[in-house]
C-alpha cells in the first residue's frame, strides 16, 4: 500500500508551486512584459495556437517571479469548458451530516492564497460565467461570492491570467469587449526554426540534427494552414515525435504517429504531410 502511495502525488491548488525551473526559451520580450504586468498587478491574456508554449511560459513565470520575490507563487490552472459555472470557479456549499460546508473553488483559493490563477481556453466558458471575473480583473481586485453574500479582496500576490487561441476557436466564440479590455495581451506564435530546434532538443533529449529536422517539418507543415489545415503541428507534437525517436522509433514512423495522424484526418492532407516528412527524414 505504501509503495502505491509513493507513486503519485496529490496536490491541492495552493501546493502547485514550482521548486525547479520549468524549461522555457523566450521568443521575444514576453518575460519582461509579463514581469512588468505582474508587478503592476495587471491581468494578462496569453494568445496563441495550441501547443505553442503558453502554459509552459506561465509555469516558468510563476517559478521566476516567486524566486525573484522570495515567496511561493502557486499556479492554479482551470481548463474552461462550456458547462463551467460560477460555482465551479468560486465555490459552493456542500451538505455534511448535520450542517453545510463551504468549499472554495479554484478561483477563490487562488485569490485568497495569492496565486496566479490561469483560466485556460477561456472563450470556452459561458459569457455569464466570465462576467464574474470583471471586478477581479480591474482596479478593484475583488471576487464577489454571491452565495455567501460577501466579496474577497485579492491577496497582493494574486494575478489573473487567461488564455485563448484566436485561430481554431469558432468565430462565434469570442471574448466580450468588456472582458477583453481588462487585460494586457501577449501574443504567442510558434518559435522560429533555430529556437524550436533548441526547445525540441532540450525537451526530448534528442540530438540537434533530429531536433532541427523536426522543427523544419513543423515550419513547413504550418504553411498548410492557409490551405485548409486548421492547425499545423504544434511544438508539443514535435516534441512528442522527438521523444518517440528518442525511444528508438524510426523517424518517419514517429512523425506519422505524432504529427501526420494527429494534425489531420483528411487523406489528401495526410499524404501531403507524409511527403513533407519524407522530404525531411531520409
Amino acid at each position: 500500500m505504501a509503495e502505491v502511495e509513493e507513486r503519485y502525488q496529490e496536490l491541492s491548488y495552493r501546493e502547485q508551486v514550482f521548486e525547479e525551473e520549468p524549461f522555457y526559451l523566450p521568443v521575444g520580450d514576453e518575460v519582461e512584459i509579463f514581469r512588468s504586468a505582474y508587478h503592476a498587478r495587471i491581468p494578462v491574456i496569453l494568445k496563441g495556437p495550441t501547443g505553442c508554449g503558453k502554459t509552459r511560459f506561465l509555469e516558468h513565470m510563476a517559478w521566476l517571479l516567486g524566486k525573484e520575490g522570495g515567496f511561493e507563487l502557486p499556479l492554479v490552472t482551470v481548463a474552461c469548458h462550456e458547462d463551467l459555472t460560477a460555482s465551479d470557479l468560486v465555490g459552493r456549499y456542500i451538505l455534511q451530516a448535520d450542517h453545510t460546508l463551504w468549499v472554495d473553488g479554484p478561483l477563490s483559493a487562488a485569490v485568497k492564497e495569492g496565486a496566479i490563477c490561469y483560466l485556460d481556453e477561456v472563450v470556452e466558458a459561458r459569457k455569464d460565467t466570465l462576467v464574474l471575473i470583471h471586478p477581479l480583473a480591474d482596479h478593484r481586485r475583488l471576487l464577489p461570492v454571491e452565495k455567501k453574500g460577501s466579496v474577497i479582496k485579492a491577496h497582493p500576490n494574486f494575478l489573473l491570467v487567461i488564455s485563448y487561441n484566436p485561430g481554431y476557436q469558432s468565430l462565434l466564440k469570442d471574448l466580450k469587449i468588456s472582458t477583453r479590455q481588462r487585460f494586457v495581451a501577449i501574443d504567442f506564435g510558434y518559435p522560429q526554426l533555430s529556437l524550436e530546434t533548441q526547445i525540441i532538443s532540450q525537451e526530448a533529449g534528442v540530438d540537434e540534427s533530429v531536433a532541427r529536422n523536426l522543427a523544419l517539418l513543423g515550419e513547413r507543415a504550418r504553411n498548410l494552414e492557409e490551405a485548409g489545415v486548421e492547425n499545423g503541428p504544434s511544438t508539443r507534437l514535435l516534441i512528442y515525435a522527438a521523444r518517440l525517436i528518442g525511444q528508438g522509433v524510426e523517424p518517419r514512423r514517429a512523425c506519422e504517429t505524432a504529427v501526420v495522424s494527429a494534425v489531420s484526418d483528411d487523406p489528401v492532407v495526410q499524404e501531403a504531410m507524409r511527403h513533407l516528412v519524407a522530404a525531411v527524414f531520409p
Partner: protein
Amino acid sequence: MTSPLNLAIYDLSREGTLGFREESGARLEEAGPILALFGKGLCAHYLHPKSLHQAPRFLSNPHRVFPFSDGRELYLPETLDIFDTPGENRLVLRLYAAVQAGQWEWGTFQHPCVEEIDGLWGDASRLREWEPLSWIKLFLGRFPLPGLAGDIFITVETARVTASLSRAFCGLKADLRWFLPRLLESSYPHNTPRGILWDLFFALFGYREGVSPVDTLEEMVREAMRVVQPGANLKDSLQITVALYPILEKLLREARDMYKSAFQDWAHDLFLSSLANQGERPTSRHGIPPQGSSTLTIMEGMAETLDGLTFLEARLPAGSGEFLSESLKMEVTEKRNAAEKPTLKVNFPADRAHSDVFPELVECKRFIYPEWDYLRGSYRRDWVTLYQLEKLPDEGGKRDLLKGWEQLVQEVSRQFRMIRHQERRWRKRLEDGEEIDLEEALQGELERRSGIPPSEKTYMEKRRRTREVSAFLLIDLSASTSYPIEEGSHEGETVLQVLLASGAIMAQALEQLGDRYCLYGFSGYGRKQVEVLRIKSFSERLGKEHLERMGRIRSRKSTRMGAAVRHAHHILSAEPASLKLLMVLSDGFPQDCDYGDDRGDREYGLQDTAHALMEAEMDGVVPFCISVDSAGNDYLRRMCSARNYLVLKSVGDLPRQLPKIYLRLRDHW
C-alpha cells in the same frame, strides 16, 4: 540528350494509361492535389498541378532533368508507373514537385526594379508583373538565340535550386541520390548543346559520365560550379548563363549545317519571344546570329548590367491583363461616383443599355456586392451586380421532379416528423425545474458522502427543445449541371434534376419539422449579371406551385459562387433565428468568364468564395458546402474548414444524405 528513364516519364504522359498498374503507379488526377499541397508546405506557394504535356516546351521537355515551373503551375507526369514499388514512383513525383516549389523558396522569381532596367533592354513597361517569369523572359529574349539562353538558364537555375533543396532537406537529398544515377543510366549520347547541358547538370552534382567533349564540359563546369555552392542566388544563375552562352553558341556555329533547325527553334522560341524585342536582336537568315564579336559584345554588356542590378523578392501582385485594365477603369469610375454609391443597392432601376442586352432582368431586384481579389489583397467595391429573379426567362416544360423519389420523400418526412415529437422530452440535469431528477439527486448524495462537491443540477423538466433555425438552401444552376449521371437508379437524369430533387425532398421534410427555410438557385454570366432565382422565400409555405417551379428549372450559365453566398448572407442577416444555416449544393468549383485572370484560373473564384463564406461565418451564419464533384475535396478544403463541407462520391446519394447532413448540423450547432 536524355535517357530512357526520362523518356519513359514523358512518353507515359503522352501515350495514356496502357498497362498502368494501379497498385504501384500514380496518376496526376490523384497525386496532383497531394503534391500541390506538399509544394505549398515546402515553399508557402500553391502551385496548380498540370500534366507535363500542358507545359510550354521551353519549361518542360524530355531533354531536361526536371520540369521548370512558371511560378503558378506544377508540372507532373500524367501517370507514373516506371518503378516497381509505389514508394519509388512517389519519390520521383515528390522530387518533381519539390524542385518546382523550390523555385519560389530560392528566389527564381525575384526581379529587379522596373526603373532599373527600363530602357536598358527595351521597353520594360511591357513586363507583366503578375507573371512570375516575365522578367526572366525579357532578359533571355535579349540573347541572339533566346531558346539556347533559356536552355542554359533553366539548366543552371534548376541545378541551383536542386542543390539548395538537397542541402536543406535530408530526405530530398537521399531521394536525389537515388534518382539521379538512375536517370543517368544509358543516356543517349548526343554531342549537342542540349546534350552538353544535360551532362553539365549531372557534372555539377559530381556525376561525370557524359559523352560531351571533355574540354568544353570542363570549361562549363568551371564557370557554373558556384551555382551549386551555398549562398548562390538568381543573379549567379543569370551571370553564368551569360558566361556559358558564347561557349555553346560557338559549338553550334561550328556545326551550323547540322543544327539548322535547332537554330530556328532557338531563335524563335515562341514562349520567350512574346516579350523580346525581336527587332533589336542581331539575327540573320535562318535565325543564325552574325559571326564576329557581336555576341561577345552583347554578353559583356549584359554581364555589366547584371552586376549593377538589385533583386527584389517576388510576389504574385494585383490583377492582370484585360482583367486589370478593367479593374483600373472601374476604380476611376468608383472614385468619381463614390459619394453617391452605397455598398449595397436594392431595387436599383436597371440602366437602359443593360436592359437591352438582358431584357428579362429589367423588372427584378438588383443588388450590388463587393468581391475579394486575392491578387490585390483587398475587396473590389461595388463589383458584382446580382439580380434576384422570381422566375427564369427560359423555363422548360413541366416535369415531375420527385418521380422515382416517392419512397424517400415518405421516409424522410416521417423521420423529421418524429424528430419534432421527440424534441418534447425530459431535459435532465437542470439547476431548477419541474421535478427532482432522482438519479442525479442520488448521485449527488453519494458524492456528498464521499466528500466530493456534489452537482447542483438535480432537477428535470419536460419542455420542447425548439431550435430557432433558419435554413438557406442555395442550389447551383450552372451549365455543368446539365450532364447526366451515369450510375444508380436515376441514371440518365441530369445533375441539376438530382440537385433540385434533393432540395424538394428537404423542403417537404422541413415542413414537417417546422424549421424556417428558403430555397434559392444561382447562376449568371459575368460580374454584371449574376442571377439568383428565388424558388421559395422564408415567409412562404411550401406549395404545389413551388415544386412546379423547381420542375421547370433548366441548367443556366456560370458559377459565380461568392456573390451568391453574399446574397444568401444578406437575406439570412434579416432572420432572427439563433441558428442560421447556409447550405450550398454544387457540382463544381466557382467559375465565371471574368472570375479571375482567365476562365481557367480557379484561384480567384476560390478565394472570393472562401471570403464570402468567412464573412457569413463571422456574422453568425453556419455555412456548409456540399459538392457532388468527386474532385471537390481539392478546392473545398481551401474554401472552408473541414467541418464545413462534404463531398459526395455519387450524385445519386445526395437526396438521401442531405436530410441527414441537415440534422447533424442542426444538432451540432
